[in-house]
């Protein structure tokens, strides 16, 4: 399997505090990879470093040549006075893409936002989450990085998003998911790492162990 992303001994410190400590893992093309851990485990900082939003204090992050990435943040903000289509056109414009209306409409349909004229201020949290996913897909990325993609969604919304992620996986997309909803992780991810206080304390591969991910997570993360 071709490696699309590789982290080697990546450390991030702020003054005296180390939030990510000698983190190493690699992700192959087409894999759906989970970053797991309790709040403050260093998952979001790891994502920020992969995206270039923060620089590692030491270590190396390698992304394969020509890989395009898309990012859906945990708490996305979109200008409330714009409609979904306007948001899509805005980000497409920033990327220097031709603002092909049909293509952008198709992306919005894919995430279940058929009504793309309603303004963001009238959107529910779940709809904003879907819009975040849609804008992440504009560049048709090879690597999708999703921070809590099912958080705040109702049961139907979660099901819809998981189905969408499955479809993206089938299309060969590599996906990194940071989520607290372990049931969703088990439903979609191939493998992952469990982090605690900035360190990888264990890895997880779907379907290998009889122990559920939730039990494993509680056992490992709950231990002091």
């Amino acid at each position, binding site marked *: 399997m071709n490696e699309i992303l590789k982290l080697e001994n990546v450390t991030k410190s702020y003054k005296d505090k180390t939030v990510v400590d000698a983190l190493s893992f690699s992700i192959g093309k087409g894999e759906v990879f989970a970053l797991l851990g309790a709040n403050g485990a260093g998952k979001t900082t790891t994502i920020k470093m992969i995206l270039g939003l923060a620089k590692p204090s030491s270590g190396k992050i390698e992304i394969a040549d020509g890989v395009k990435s898309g990012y859906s943040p945990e708490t996305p903000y979109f200008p409330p006075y714009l409609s979904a289509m306007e948001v899509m056109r805005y*980000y497409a414009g920033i990327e220097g893409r031709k603002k092909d209306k049909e293509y952008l409409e198709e992306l919005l349909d894919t995430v279940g936002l058929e009504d793309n004229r309603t303004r963001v201020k009238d959107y529910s949290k779940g709809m904003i989450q879907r819009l975040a996913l849609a804008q992440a897909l504009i560049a048709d990325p090879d690597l999708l990085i999703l921070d809590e993609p099912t958080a705040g969604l109702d049961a139907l919304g979660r099901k819809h998003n998981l189905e969408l992620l499955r479809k993206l996986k089938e299309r060969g997309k590599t996906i990194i998911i940071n989520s607290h909803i372990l049931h969703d992780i088990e439903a979609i991810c191939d493998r992952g790492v469990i982090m605690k206080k900035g360190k990888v304390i264990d890895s997880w591969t779907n379907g290998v162990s009889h122990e559920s991910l939730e039990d494993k997570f509680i056992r490992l993360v709950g231990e002091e």
Partner: protein
Amino acid sequence: MEISLNVIKEKIRKKMLYITTVLGVLVVMIFSSDMGSLTIGGRQIKDYYVLIPILIHVVNFLSGAIALAMSLTTVPNEYERRTSHLIWSRGISQSRYHMSLAIGNVAVSWISGLILYATMAVFAVVNGYSGMLGRIAAAALLMLLYTAIISMLASALSIIFPTIVSGVIMIILFAGGAFRNILILLAAVLTGAGGTIMKRVIRLFPDLAGLSRQGGNLAQGNPVDVHVIIMGMIVVWIAGIGILFFRRKEA
């Protein structure tokens, strides 16, 4: 381009532009009508030709204040609500991002300043000074430079300082620049080390008062000191360099 346009849209939608502009228009109306009159040496001045340089000082000051209020929070807001994450992660450089935001700030400041100048022009016509319209338009060009100085400096400082710090620095620079003439007078009166220090400190302030004076000269058809205009352009250029090179550590 999209980022700059979005800044303009946002300021317009947030109605901040309207509120500040309405306030400015009210001030222009008061100065330009019988509601407010200027008395010099016990004589009431009603001649618009005489009033216009004073009005230009006032309108430029208002435009500068609006530019400051509009420009100071744009960059910090982008980082605070993490819009920056979706921009940086698309490989947009900080230079391009910050400059786009700054251009948006300048554009909004210009729109607001031009509305005030348009109000001034309307009152010139109402008062029977239609012949001054061309010269008021020329003076408006200097207002564009005036507000660009404030807006660009505020944008540049807001990249590297917290809003409260950049706000205090900008208020000092703005007030010092707008009342530079008075400070120069004060420095001339002061003797000893105090006077020397003050004279040096004054040099740090952009010559906003000078720009307004040149605007007044243009409106009255008097000669203009090009040196002041060139110095103003240099300040914009320096602020632009700052915007291109100032960096945030994280998005």
